[in-house]
């Protein structure tokens, strides 16, 4: 399993990064490097490309860390958002896909979106629970979540790719999210009743 990620000393490390201390970035890499690389490799499925994009991810964080609130922000989720965006962008450039929501993707890594989040947002235990829940999804549910997360497809794009009605895609997605939310102990009143197909 991935090593412990967020810690009490993250704000100190962020402050050192802001002072342009290369050792601080190395510390960040030791904590998040494997997770970032694994995520990117899963998206692009090419080790050499994954290396380049991982380097690009850490350098992007290094160059933008001045805008990150080290006391209130959650560094890990921000870094992972950057990593996923780099990988999805690469995938789209290879596929020649022009997405209507490309702006949405790039704006989703603004440091301001990662403040005041759950303290336990990114630790190994939560990751383990989510991974277990993910494995419990049926094939349809897992497939739509993978298409959304690892390939950046919207539900209408999934419907076209899987040659399925949009309603079906929405049902699979809703069911998958219900399982994953439950794994994290979330109890949303508005959750749907469907348990999936």
């Amino acid at each position, binding site marked *: 399993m991935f090593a412990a990620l967020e810690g009490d000393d993250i704000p100190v490390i962020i402050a050192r990064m802001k002072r342009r201390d290369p050792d601080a970035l190395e510390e960040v890499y030791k904590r998040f490097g494997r997770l970032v690389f694994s995520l990117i490799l899963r998206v692009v499925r090419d080790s050499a490309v994954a290396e380049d994009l991982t380097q690009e991810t850490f350098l992007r964080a290094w160059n933008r860390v001045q805008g990150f609130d080290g006391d209130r922000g959650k560094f*890990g989720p921000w870094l992972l958002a950057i990593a996923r965006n780099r990988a999805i962008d690469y995938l789209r450039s290879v596929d020649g896909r022009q997405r209507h929501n490309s702006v949405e993707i790039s704006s989703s890594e603004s440091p301001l979106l990662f403040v005041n989040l759950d303290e336990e947002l990114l630790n190994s235990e939560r990751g383990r629970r989510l991974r277990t829940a993910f494995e419990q999804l049926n094939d349809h549910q897992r497939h739509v979540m993978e298409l959304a997360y690892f390939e950046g497809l919207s539900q209408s794009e999934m419907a076209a790719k899987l040659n399925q009605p949009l309603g079906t895609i929405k049902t699979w997605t809703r069911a998958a999210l219900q399982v994953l939310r439950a794994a994290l102990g979330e109890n949303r009143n508005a959750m749907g009743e469907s348990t999936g197909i």
Partner: protein
Amino acid sequence: MTNEELNEQYELFVLGVAEPEVADEIRAKLAAGDPEVTQGVALARALVAGLAFTAPEVEPPDRLRKKIVAAVSQEPQTFPRWFWVWATATALVAVVAFNFWQREQRKGAEVAEMRQQLIAQAAELKTVSQLLEFLNEPELKLTTFGTAQPTPPRGRVLVSPNKGVLLLVSNLPPAAQGRIYQMWLVPKQGGPVPMGLFQTTAQGTALHVRPGTVDLASAAAIAVSLEPEAGSTAPTTTPFIIAPVAE
């Protein structure tokens, strides 16, 4: 859409894959501060962050760490903000101290100059006072010199048996460095008697007083010669001023 319908879309919104009209609606409600939507999106962000753990774990090559660290290590180091605050403050203190020191130096020079002026004025006052005393002497002998010469120096000598000798000279350039003018009393019998050293001003004038008593009966003349800076016991050069003392 109702919030209940949007509830199914928060994760897709966070992933950037929600349909445009849905994303617009969530964004509008976030901007309006809708608490339910705000909380829903925050929870979705937490879930989405954890989805990275569903990727198969792969160890990156060690060279990747080295490449990343090397890339940022080549950057020129910058100093933290406190350093610049400290450096600026130190520089300001240094500038203020230097200005203060300069001002003190100027003040010191001004004080020294004023002291010199005071000394000079006191000397002039003393000379004027001596001059007045001379002029009040009843047995004053006055003689002039140089009037027949085509070139300077010219002047007057006042000899008082009770007050001494007063020499007024003009058109006499200041003596060169290491040299000085020396006045002599030349008696009718015997060698010249030293009567003090003096220097002329930049304008070539001098007023030299040698207080004391003078025996007019034995005095033949007042002379001036150019001598070494320390003065001489007897003239070492030929006197260029010789003013006879009138009987």
